[in-house]
């Protein structure tokens, strides 16, 4: 399989879908001429022209709303919000409009809309450019939430998101754009709502998504050297959620550690942990544990910044403790 960077995999998905369906078009800030701040859309202006690759002024609320309006008349817009932090300027259009329109119409309208954005800590960008806000969208009926961790997943899930008839918030990670990985040479779609077991193990389950999947895999390697076999489940999409995979692994190992980068309080991990404990109560050897972002805005200084999110050692230590619990 050829190797692609995460950003290249995303670009390939956009390219293929734009070639396939003339209703697909892109809009966002500096995505055309400049190819996007993270270079995902590079080259697409040249291929598809300024009618379908559109640079917008800095007006997040309205250009997001415009994508909603275009979707309402049957187009398939893919709008880019440069940082998920900036999605906060467009929340009315995302939550009050995009998420509600299908329901409000009694199911008579379809809203095929993808909102691409990216989040996460890691480049010294401080409190307004480093948030992980998937929980805000996860809570809103009418939105799907997809968060790929690898180039192959980014590719296959973005294609499915574009073909999906409903609004999808597609959250990338700023630290993943330069990460390489194998991507199938032939066209491949991955269904939204299927988790991927990225490592099999019997002793403990690490549940994660996006950038933290890589830390979980690294932690699992460490654990293996200590004789602990961790299963690493990458949820890939939070809505729809692959409950079967989640509960299946939880029942199998009886020990679950949920790892996410977003702040722990009110993070998606709480919902998942509660769900697992409600549904797999009898199979659990210990309560589900959560390792997540600390309850703080993200600081600028390097040494503080890194301490805000779970590290590999920390994951391995928590998993090891959990693996030993109740034995």
């Amino acid at each position: 399989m050829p190797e692609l960077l995460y950003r290249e995999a995303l670009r390939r998905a956009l390219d293929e879908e734009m070639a396939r369906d003339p209703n697909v078009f892109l809009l966002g800030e500096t995505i055309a001429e400049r190819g996007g701040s993270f270079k995902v859309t590079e080259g697409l202006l040249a291929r598809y022209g300024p009618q379908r690759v559109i640079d917008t002024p800095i007006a997040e609320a309205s250009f997001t709303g415009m994508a909603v309006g275009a979707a309402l008349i049957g187009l398939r817009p893919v709008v880019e919000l440069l940082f998920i932090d900036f999605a906060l300027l467009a929340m009315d259009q995302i939550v009050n409009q995009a998420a509600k329109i299908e329901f409000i119409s009694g199911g008579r309208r379809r809203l095929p809309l993808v909102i691409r954005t990216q989040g996460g800590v890691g480049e010294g960008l401080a409190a307004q450019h480093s948030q992980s806000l998937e929980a805000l969208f996860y809570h809103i009926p009418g939105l799907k939430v997809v968060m790929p961790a690898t180039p192959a997943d980014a590719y296959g899930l973005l294609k499915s998101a574009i073909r999906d008839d409903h609004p999808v918030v597609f959250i990338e990670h700023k630290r993943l754009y330069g990460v390489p990985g194998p991507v199938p040479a032939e066209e491949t779609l991955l269904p939204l709502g299927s988790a991927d077991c990225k490592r099999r193990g019997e002793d403990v389950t690490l549940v994660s998504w996006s950038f933290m999947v890589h830390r979980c895999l690294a932690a699992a390697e460490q654990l293996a050297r200590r004789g602990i076999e961790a299963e690493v489940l990458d949820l890939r999409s939070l809505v729809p959620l692959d409950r079967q995979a989640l509960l299946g692994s939880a029942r199998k190992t009886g020990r679950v550690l949920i790892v996410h980068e977003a702040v722990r309080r009110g993070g998606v991990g709480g919902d998942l942990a509660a769900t697992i404990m409600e549904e797999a109560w009898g199979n659990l050897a210990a309560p589900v544990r959560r390792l997540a972002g600390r309850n703080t805005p993200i600081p600028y200084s390097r040494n503080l910044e890194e301490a805000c999110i779970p590290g590999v050692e920390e994951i391995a230590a928590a998993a090891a403790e959990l693996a030993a619990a109740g034995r």
Partner: protein
Amino acid sequence: MDAAPSDKENGLPPRALLLAMYRHMFATRRFEEVCLDFYRRGLIRGYLHSYIGEEAVAAGACAALRPDDYIASTHRGHGHCIAKGADLRFMMAEILGRETGYCRGRGGSMHIASADLHHLGANGIVGGGIPLATGAALGIRVRGGDQVVISFFSDGASNNGVFAESLNLAGVFRLPVIYLLENNFFAVSTPIECATGCCELAGRGPAYGVPGVCVDGNDAIAVWRETRRAVARARRGEGPSLIEARTFRWGGHHANDPGQYIDPERLAGWKKRDPLALLRRQIDDPQAVADVESRVEAELAAAIDFALDSPEPDLPSFLAAIEP
């Protein structure tokens, strides 16, 4: 703020169009009266914002559209919906929360929408529909075609950021959208002078590269004329327009608001310029008008029966459709 209209553009609309406009205005007036009555009798819940007094704006503007053109509407949206050709039965059913309504009873008055009518939706968020309309215009451009979009909203919404943003976006992209600002001088109880330091709202257009005109919003023909010009411009690919139509609502903000803050004399002055009476005078054919009115009355009676006879939405199937 715009060049003087040519003679041809100042001409009267064809007679059929005049009667169609009147039909929409009369239907709106009567529909609203029934709704207000139903509201007082507890048959309608939630917010009910009456368009009485402002009918000429929707009727005049929509008369300049083709059926395949789009509109986006507001919380005060019954008039737009009727003028875009809505079936009174499905409207009434929606407002009464019935399964047969435009939105199967899920939306209610503030959310009526219909893909068939090319009606992008009423909106419970002030200003919320403006970007949607702008985006529909962008969508038209992307897929090719000469449709246009009208975005209806009022003075209050024009102080919200999305109005400025959208105006700017449409201006720079030269999108086929008409911003129809229904200046009724109030946002709830807040008079326009307390909401902005510059009450000449049409002037906001040029600040974003969009021509702006002000028109008598109680004169359906005047509204039609300006809208027609803006529509033609948009169809020619020359971009958006802002039309400020000055009008007045005859009651409080919603059915529950007595509107005591409205100066009675001022209101009386506006009522003297009743848009329906004005258009009747311009049509100058009492028999034709009476025919329209009686057809509307029959239609409305049928709509009421239809709606009241319709079932409420089915709870089990609603619950079954909810995703886990």
